[in-house]
């Protein structure tokens, strides 16, 4: 049973179609990436999952049932527009959010301390939120969305504004949570993170899904037309009829083959005049797929 399921969901604001017949589903123990350029409809889709807005048509199901507020008790949500009560102490703030999610104050306090230890902000618990840096505040928001041990975690741009060290810390935490069987959905622009973390993705553009499925499967749908060659000797093979475009950095060449270009033939041509140390047929990165799919079609 999918943890989240969107079936033909549409949302229209004024005259703009924000989400256009979008369908997707996320299973337990799966990390799902919602991708798309700015204004593609990612946040609008997430807000409908969270019951903040209602779809004009289509259906949102959470834990197998049509959306109901009670389901939110098992959902952890980190919105893109996120904030904290500035005058409150961090620990009081976390206890407040924990209590709103049904925890007792004592339990919430205990979990807040454990999470603070894990995310290396234990010394900030008794500080007022306004005294903390933006990155620290983001970690607190991250904890607030996880304190009640949700089965579904929805995060809108969770890594934006974080330094690499903290981004890695949060990535590891999400992987741990996935391993515990949680369903995780996050939206991002960072393709390297999607490639590293996600099992499945949905690429939306102008409100509609343009690419969806398991990352492996999607990548396999695209031709392996990039070749990396490390060599010594004659570089004449770079003028081969199989090549559409190439860059040679003194013995390190990055090559894009023509459609239906033959890599084996190119290898023979290269080996004829040069010593080959590496010849790798590289699959396209998600970033390339993203650019290729969305191209100049985004609204951003």
């Amino acid at each position, binding site marked *: 049973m999918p943890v989240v399921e969107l079936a033909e969901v549409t949302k229209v604001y004024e005259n703009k179609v924000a989400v256009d017949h979008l369908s997707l589903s996320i299973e337990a123990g799966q990390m799902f990436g919602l991708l798309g350029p700015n204004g593609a409809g990612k946040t609008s889709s997430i807000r409908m999952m969270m019951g903040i807005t209602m779809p004009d048509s289509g259906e949102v199901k959470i834990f197998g049932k049509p959306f109901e507020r009670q389901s939110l008790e098992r959902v952890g949500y980190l919105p893109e527009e996120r*904030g904290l009560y500035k005058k409150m102490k961090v620990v009081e703030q976390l206890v407040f959010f924990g209590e*709103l999610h049904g925890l007792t104050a004592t339990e919430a306090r205990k979990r807040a301390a454990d999470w603070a230890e894990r995310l290396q902000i234990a010394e900030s618990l008794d500080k007022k939120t306004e005294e903390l840096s933006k990155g620290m505040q983001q970690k607190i928001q991250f904890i607030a969305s996880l304190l009640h041990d949700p089965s579904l975690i929805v995060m809108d741009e969770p890594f934006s504004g974080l330094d690499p060290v903290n981004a890695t810390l949060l990535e590891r935490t999400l992987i741990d949570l996935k391993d515990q069987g949680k369903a995780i959905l996050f939206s991002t622009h960072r393709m390297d993170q999607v490639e590293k973390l996600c099992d499945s993705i949905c690429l939306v553009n102008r409100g509609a899904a343009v690419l969806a499925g398991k990352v492996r499967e999607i990548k396999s749908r695209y031709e392996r037309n990039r070749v990396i060659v490390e060599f010594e000797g004659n570089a004449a093979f770079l003028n081969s009829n199989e090549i559409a475009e190439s860059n040679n950095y003194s013995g390190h060449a990055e090559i894009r083959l023509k459609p239906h270009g033959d890599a084996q033939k190119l290898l023979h041509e290269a080996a004829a005049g040069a010593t080959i140390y590496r010849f790798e047929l590289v699959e396209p990165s998600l970033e390339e797929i993203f650019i290729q799919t969305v191209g100049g079609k985004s609204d951003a």
Partner: protein
Amino acid sequence: MRNIFLIAKREYLEQIRGRAFRMTTIGLPAVFAAVIAVSYLSSLGLGSGKHLAIAATDPALASEIKDRVVSKKDQKAIVDVIAPATAADRGRLLEQVRNKTIDGLFWIESPVGALPKATYFSKSSGDFVTTRRLKTALNDGLVNERLTTGGMQQEQADALVKGISINTLQVKVDGQLVKSSAEMSLWKGYVMAFLLSMTTIIYGMNVARSIIQEKTSRIFEVMLATAKPTDMLAGKLIGVGAVGMTQIAIWLVTAIVLFASPFAAALMSGDLSISFSWAEGVLFPVYFLLGFLLYSSLFAGLAATCETEQELQMYMPLAAAPTWLSFSMILLIVNDSNSPWSVAASLFPPTAPIIMFLRMASQTPPLWQFAASIGLMMLSIWATLWFSSKLYRVGILMYGKRATLPELLRWLRYS
């Protein structure tokens, strides 16, 4: 329900711990007491200690007037009597007024067989206190002079001039007679209505400010993932309302302690008697709560449509208009608390809390009018909450630009 309680508790604790709460709890009554004290003290010394000249053709009348001007109330006054005065004296004295040697000249001519004609010359046109004092002195002096020259004993004449004071007693519903003073009733009503309007508006604005701060800090979407917008609004209103009730309770307890002290004993006797009924004690928190809910639910809806506190300030005159209207009716109400205007204003929800207290200060209105005004207020609170919760639902997630009127109307149509 649990979420409403948690949100209310958070709001309550944050505001109670804030500096603004401490400042208004101590500051507001202090400022109010200072305003009353300053206006009372300055009225005591108003128009006293002046150097006047009384010039009259009738020396007896002039001296009579002088005795009355230099009385217990104004022992510092210096009054020169020039009688019988001539036209030359008049010119000389007017010159003294012009170069400020004296503050004023009271010129009285007494033609034979007619009433005297009096003129007061001074540099200031607005010296109404001295003018009134001279007028009373002239009239009393003239009556006294005529009575005594007509053969009446001096003591009898004095008693007649002094007049007879009226003892005012208020007949309560249960037939009890209570000593009352129209002046003190006016003051009591004014103070209670003032406190009521101040607290209602201050706490209504607190709700609005708190919503704008939350909007600025982008906390709403986090909150919406756990609580319904109506729960958030209800929690906020209850939390801030409880802060207001706490403040009123502190003021009431302080007032009771002060009134129980020997200092207040003098105030509670004689002409300065003030009595507070149980009805006033119970209805004050009730009307505060209703007024607060009415105004704060309206402010909450408006605040959700604003981006900054400055934008919210634009709505302040709108919010304060019923208060101005109520206070502009104060004399009308105290003078005749049962006139159709008074009754209508005490039933009209935006003015009801203040007007009802002004009316109660002079006479307790019938029970049905309390019931009607409370009922109407509850009805209008419900309507305002419905309207505001619609604006609130949509407005809290709108960032970046101020909503236009057509947009607001569209928000109201959203579910």
